[in-house]
């Protein structure tokens, strides 16, 4: 899958982020620490899967041909996925899941806020719906990181570890490349470089309230958008795509 139209490529990034993170969160179902949280995580997961369906469906419409959201979800291999490395990282403990979610939600809310102004009505429409969902996701992940950071000695330690260890995956979110630059020039999107500063500022406020230490500037891992993923994505896809791979086009 090479030389995609820039809009299609951008939509795949959006859709794949939601799809992969949604799948990760669904792994908690039946395993969350309390029933309330089990349902809460499932709700966020389903919101993200719905968004993935919208973005990937639109990518298929724009590309033409017979590709739909299911095609993109079930018929591509890891190298063709365009999600950020952050969202494919394993759930780890509850603190790690929540820190990953906070990093993502903070970015996601700002991105969608910009996309609501997109001249393409289809993009603006999906973004407007997703924005409301993402605002709630952020409220949840923010609250949890504050509670866990400012909680017991153990929850503080685990949360700080997650903050530090996931940090190297955040730089990629704000990476601009020729595809985003082209779309920003056309006025389709707001360049993501501009939201990096606000993201850091808001994160610093949340971490301070959580009595957590802001991570040290570090080398950042990149590559997800070009299809260069961590080993975790292959295992995730093996589970997610099993049915389609074992019984192509199965129906019931």
């Amino acid at each position, binding site marked *: 899958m090479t030389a995609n139209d820039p809009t299609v490529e951008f939509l795949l990034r959006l859709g794949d982020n939601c799809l992969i993170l949604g799948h990760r969160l669904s792994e908690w179902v039946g395993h969350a620490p*309390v029933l*309330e*949280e089990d349902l809460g995580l499932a709700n966020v997961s389903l919101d993200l899967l719905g968004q993935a369906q919208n973005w990937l469906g639109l990518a298929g419409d724009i590309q033409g041909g017979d590709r739909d959201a299911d095609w993109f979800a079930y018929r591509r291999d890891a190298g063709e996925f365009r999600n950020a490395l952050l969202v494919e990282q394993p759930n780890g403990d509850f603190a790690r899941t929540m820190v990953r979610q906070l990093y993502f939600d903070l970015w996601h809310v700002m991105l969608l806020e910009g996309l609501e102004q997109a001249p393409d009505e289809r993009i603006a429409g999906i973004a407007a719906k997703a924005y409301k969902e993402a605002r709630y996701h952020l*409220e949840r992940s923010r609250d949890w990181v504050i*509670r866990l950071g400012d909680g017991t000695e153990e929850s503080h330690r685990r949360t700080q570890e997650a903050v530090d260890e996931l940090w190297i995956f955040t730089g990629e979110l704000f990476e601009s490349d020729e595809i985003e630059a082209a779309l920003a020039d056309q006025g389709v999107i707001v360049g993501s470089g501009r939201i990096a500063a606000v993201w850091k500022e808001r994160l610093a406020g949340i971490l301070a309230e959580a009595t957590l230490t802001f991570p040290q500037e570090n080398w950042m891992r990149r590559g997800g958008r070009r299809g260069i993923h961590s080993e975790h994505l292959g295992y995730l896809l093996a589970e997610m795509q099993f049915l389609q791979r074992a019984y192509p086009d199965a129906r019931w």
Partner: protein
Amino acid sequence: MNEMPLWEIFIRSQHGLAHKHVGSLHASDAEMAINNARDVYTRRNEGVSIWAVRSTDIVASAPGDKGPLFEPANSKAYRHPTFYDIPDEVGHM
């Protein structure tokens, strides 16, 4: 997480006139109680408003007092307004 206090949840539905008790859940504080109630009890568009009350703040009548509390009302049919015609314009009573 088992030591989180219990909350009673009341939801007002789209067309409902009053909040109705829907169940209970655990949460560490009021904000989390509202969020959890949203996630547990409004997944299918059930509500437009949520109340959460700490279960310990609810004062309940004792089951043993059922007789003295409620039986005296049994024999007083004249308290039921079934002897009046209510005009349609009055709407909900």
